[in-house]
């Protein structure tokens, strides 16, 4: 449809049309590379450090893996686009289209996988807080692995289904409903945890001798966590909704002209994710430090 709007722009040169906002390839590349580096680092650190073989870190590792896959497929698509631009690749060839489909399904898979990983992390934290004494019984490594396998299988199938049946409105509606459901559930879990924390904080504050000060840090962290998630993900999903709901509306058209910006936001979430989830952990940070020192020592010795 964007080609459709671009054609009138070219022929009619109407100033009030919303031209599609173009983002140079270099920016896509940079963000994809940074995200790839960060998430790969997290995955390697979790795998190498035996202390981090616990359900919570497994979920964080799975999130980082999904982000890695999305960065990789985005980078691959960029490379193919560069080749197509320079004329080395026929953009209409069958094999190119097939490869395109594979990349799209990988992207879809990684997007859905990210959402499910967030959900898994939130549920894990919820169980840790509200069933702390029975946590080790509820969330064993076996169960965590089973949950992760189910998530990966489901996302793989969904990615393929979405790309094959993209024209089907029902599938897209399912995708959007899934996103909204996940959002609401994550919000509920975190707010409930926050309420308990506030409850405990008040109990502790009422003890004699303890410092009494209003700590806004919890509220701020929760707002950042949720705000970043919403700000990065919902423009893209609103785009999907708008494609289905109002394809002909000029206002919707102007919203859809910002498609590349929305994709950039989605990719930048993969960059911010490690900072919010993984790098908060002191154990993970110390693992990074050890890895860097080790690699640096190796380079120096060699």
């Amino acid at each position: 449809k964007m080609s459709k709007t671009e054609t009138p722009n070219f022929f009619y040169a109407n100033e009030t049309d919303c031209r599609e906002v173009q983002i140079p390839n270099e920016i896509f590349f940079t963000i994809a590379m940074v995200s790839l580096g960060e998430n790969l680092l997290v995955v390697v650190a979790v795998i190498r450090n035996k202390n981090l073989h616990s359900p919570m870190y497994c979920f964080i590792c799975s999130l980082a893996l999904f982000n890695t896959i999305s960065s990789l497929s985005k980078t691959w698509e960029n490379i193919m686009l560069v080749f197509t631009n320079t004329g080395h690749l026929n953009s209409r060839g069958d094999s190119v289209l097939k490869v395109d489909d594979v990349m799209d399904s990988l992207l879809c898979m990684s997007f859905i996988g990210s959402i499910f990983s967030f959900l898994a992390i939130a549920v894990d934290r919820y169980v840790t807080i509200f069933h702390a004494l029975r946590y080790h019984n509820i969330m064993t490594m076996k169960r965590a692995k089973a949950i992760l396998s189910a998530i990966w299988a489901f996302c793989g199938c969904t990615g393929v289904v979405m790309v094959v049946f993209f024209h089907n409105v029902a599938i897209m509606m399912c995708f959007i409903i899934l996103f909204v459901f996940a959002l609401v559930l994550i919000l509920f879990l975190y707010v409930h945890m926050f309420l308990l924390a506030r409850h405990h904080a008040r109990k502790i504050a009422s003890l004699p001798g303890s410092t009494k000060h209003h700590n806004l840090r919890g509220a701020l962290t929760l707002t950042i966590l949720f705000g970043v998630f919403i700000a990065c993900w919902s423009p893209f999903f609103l785009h999907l909704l708008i494609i289905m709901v109002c394809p002909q509306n000029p206002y919707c058209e102007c919203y859809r002209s910002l498609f590349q910006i929305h994709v950039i936001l989605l990719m930048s979430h993969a960059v911010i994710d490690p900072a919010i989830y993984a790098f908060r952990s002191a154990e993970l940070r110390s693992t990074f430090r050890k890895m860097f020192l080790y690699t640096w020592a190796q380079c120096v010795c060699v």
Partner: protein
Amino acid sequence: MRKKNYAAVVEDRRKIFLNFKESILEMSDFNHLNKSRSSGRGPEYVWEYEYYDDEEPVSFEGLKAHRYSVVIGFWVGLAVFVIFMFFVLTLLTKTGAPHQENLEACDKHPGLTSCVVDISHDQGSGSKVCSHSLMEESHSIFRCSINEEEQCEPVAGHQGYQGRLSVRTSSDVQGEPMGLRKDREANFLQHFNIPNFVNSEHSSVLGDDDLLLCEQPIIMDSETRCNSKLDIIS
């Protein structure tokens, strides 16, 4: 005809949405001349579609509001929602909680929440007695929840919080001297700090991690780390 156009639009959208860059590519100079450009599925639709160039599906004539009003409205709405959420959470931090909430929690949550005891009646007494009674009350409640713990397999080296609890409560707390008790109580308060929203002196071991969810109780290799087991949200 309208229906076919719409089908073509939807079909076109599919390719353009997922291959947005290719669609931009199509707009390069040497491509737009190629009228037989098609998605490879139903070329006849694309042909007819292109013959209806005069029927501009998206007309920008007579717009009442600014053309980016949907975009602006969306982002303003999002910002308002996030700020509203922040203020609500801040307000929750500042206002007091009804005590009934605690009583209900004792019934519904057999976990640690049940061990939060309302000690407001103790505030008149001295500090020693106050924390003393907190310890005892909490321990008595812990005894009921310890029965759950006895089924836990003790994971060596990953004992962390639960191991400590079972060790502490299984021993006879009553007969201990006062000094040991105060020491335990300090440790207990550290452990009791489930989500560390309050940055008290006891629980600032993982100083820079005390935001929301931090580490799990189980990944521990050092004694000091164990003290902030319940700083779960970083």
